[in-house]
């Protein structure tokens, strides 16, 4: 039992341990790595993925999944980009992007709750639909944004880059909802045991409906933040972002089986960790073809840890039929 407990504690703080290890390794290999400029750089680069992953965490907590976030990012910036080109104001375009996120999230939640289709299948469908819709909208051409957009990405308020500010606001809002509101606690309850939640009088369907909308809106925000950094809407914009978002959440200790995980420190740490690894590889001039290999190794490790933890918890929680005397 004691050994198991020790392992459990280690598993609980794996992300933090991994984070420390990564900083130590890269820090000792390159002096540039630990400079404040580079740290800000890492945060800026990870903000888009982190925002999407925060939305994803809400969904994962209910034991669901949202594969459509990459496509939502694409459609959101495609719509916003078109509007900016047509001459609409930046603010209005941003609102339109958020609306796209809301509508897609709502579509997902209606299909999942009302028609009782599995989240995996529903969001796989909206993944293809969104990608196709966006390609049709942009006529599969890349759109280069006017300078106003990229300037927004480079601008600072009180010395902090705007992407980081948006990231921090989403983080604060998400963390507040999860920890300080009845909705947040009920999300955990539903993820822990939907049947018990129903019996306890929680409106399970409403909760499921809300999390996919939150995920969609976060994807739209994350998409726009990415747009201010890249300055262009390409046909592959947001492609496979769903995987980095899920990976970030899982790496941060969110369970794919629901009910377990946090936005802060969990998911945020996961998102920043993935970015940190990539940043470190860049600084060390590692062959770029190796990046995906290293990232995938990190993700595999994270999923392995999640499964081990769940199995162990299940084993500890199994109800004994008889209580053995202690010798």
């Amino acid at each position, binding site marked *: *039992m*004691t050994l198991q407990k020790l392992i459990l504690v280690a598993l609980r703080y794996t992300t933090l341990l991994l984070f420390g290890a990564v900083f130590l390794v890269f820090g000792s290999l390159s002096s540039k790595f630990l400079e404040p400029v580079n740290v800000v750089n890492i945060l800026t680069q990870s903000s888009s993925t982190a925002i999407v992953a925060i939305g994803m965490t809400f969904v994962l907590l209910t034991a669901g999944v949202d594969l459509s976030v990459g496509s939502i990012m694409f459609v959101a910036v495609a719509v916003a980009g078109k509007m900016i080109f047509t001459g609409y104001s930046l603010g209005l375009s941003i609102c339109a992007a958020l609306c796209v996120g809301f509508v897609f999230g709502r579509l997902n939640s209606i299909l999942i709750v009302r028609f009782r289709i599995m989240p995996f299948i529903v969001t796989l469908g909206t993944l293809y639909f969104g990608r196709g819709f966006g390609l049709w909208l942009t006529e599969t051409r890349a759109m280069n944004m006017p300078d106003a957009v990229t300037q927004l990405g480079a601008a600072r308020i009180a010395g902090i880059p705007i992407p980081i500010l948006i990231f921090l606001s989403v983080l604060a809002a998400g963390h*507040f909802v999860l920890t*300080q*509101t*009845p*909705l947040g*606690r*009920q999300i*955990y*309850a539903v*993820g*822990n*045991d939907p049947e*018990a*939640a*129903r*019996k*306890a*009088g*929680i409106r399970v369907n409403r909760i499921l409906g809300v999390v996919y909308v939150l995920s969609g809106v976060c994807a739209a925000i994350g998409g726009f933040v990415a747009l201010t950094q890249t300055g262009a809407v390409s046909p592959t914009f947001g492609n496979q972002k769903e995987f980095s978002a899920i990976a970030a959440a899982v790496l941060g200790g969110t369970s794919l089986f629901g*009910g*377990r995980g946090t936005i802060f420190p969990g998911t945020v740490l996961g998102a920043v960790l993935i970015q940190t690894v990539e940043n470190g590889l860049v600084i060390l001039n590692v062959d770029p073809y190796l990046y995906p290999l290293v990232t995938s190794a990190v993700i595999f490790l994270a999923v392995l840890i999640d499964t081990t933890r769940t199995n162990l*918890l299940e084993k500890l*929680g*199994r*109800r*004994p*039929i*008889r*209580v*053995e*005397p*202690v010798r």
Partner: protein
Amino acid sequence: MSSSPRILEFDSVEKSFFGVKVLKAVTFDLRTGTAIGLVGENGAGKSTLMNILGGIHTPDAGYIRMEGEPYAPRNPQDAARAGVAFIHQELNLFSNLTIAENIFITTFPRVAGLPMIARKTVRERARSLLDQVGLSVNPNTRVESLSAGERQLVEIAKALSLDARIIIFDEPTSSLTALETDRLFELISTLRARGISMIYISHALSDVMKLCDDIVVLRDGEVVGKSRTAETSTAKLISLMVGRSIDQLYPERTGRPAAERALSVRNLSQPGIVRNIAFDLHDQEILGISGLMGSGRSELARILFGLDPFETGEVLLWGENLPKPSPRQCVRMGMAFLTENRREEGLCMEASIAENMALVSLPNFANRGGYWIDHGRLSKSLTALRGAVRLTRSARLSQAVRTLSGGNQQKVVLAKWLLNRPRVFILDEPTRGIDVGAKYEVYSLINKLASDGAAVLIISSEIEELIGMCDQILVMRNGEIADTIRRPDFDRERILRGALKQSHTTRTSPVETARHDPESR
């Protein structure tokens, strides 16, 4: 019966599932501030009745009145609002949340006008509720780190937070230590003094006798006994619970157990599950295992079939020791296992009858080299087999199993195993959810298997069924074999006594030591 007013009245409540009547004209009252004991065998209809009270099912006929007013909850929220609280055997707590969060999960006090939890109020109110139930643990402790008894107290605190007027306990002591049980009983008396009424469901008759003012006995969905506790006895209750004369016919046994041992189990133990299990199952023998739910019956079956591990002891199949049996090995050596849960574990519901039947023994129908299936030979066997298990004539083999009745589904499961020509059968609840006619056919089939030489182990909650079918019955309790009864000595009361016997006292000593073990927290 007494002077205090009636808070709850059941008036001829009826309920059927899939055409089977599970509640027949159930009528009784609950008086304010008293506790009523609800007893009966597994499947007597207790849970259904309580689910109606809790708004999970609606009755087909009859009424429930609460303080004279009609009471018809449409969902659990309605029941909670009316002041009915449940303490389920399987506790409905969210282990990933704290005690306080569990108590207020649907009724969080908020900061004025904001969707924000008033953490301080939550903590204070939780603290006071925990004081009322006598649990001195920080309300911000996560439920996963609590013991079963502590979790139960949290459930009761939750019921109190909802101003419950009626609390239903379903088998509340089954996972409690003796100390926790005593504390629970004290709490229950305190709550009754406050005017809260209780319905107490339990197999631990001594607990029921100790706690309740009145006792209602259910059997086959009917109230067969209602009396003041002072006017009855445990023996009377047991005979009421099982008292039905055998109205189902059991087919005549033709064979006798042979001398050859098919399956031998020696001192089998797995900590926390079973202890010191030993028996012999002979060819042509039908051996029954009786016991309450959670007595370790099904877990034993899973161990024997290699689905779960065992720590010490031996399992011998035809004299061959299997130190680490696996399902694959067991199937190859001629063992068959019907799970208690045929819908989820025994059948692929969407697949056809033929596909389900062929599932286990497909390799036997592969062509030389094993690359493809000889469909001609397979379909010939399947046709013969459907006759052997007397599958309904109206079914086509290409039809989805889902569309069959419970009885016919069970025949498909049996057929699936028969195709592999097994010689040891482990049947867990083989007739659960099957109507009487189909039951008889399943019994005949089992009899035929035995007289053709197979060894059969039947696990069943229905004592009658075991008495009607078996050569010998093992009674399990608390993971151990409590009694072994041979056919001439078969006696319902003896079986039930073995299964129920004083769970209270046997529990005491080992558990108390376990409580002091720091690791157990």
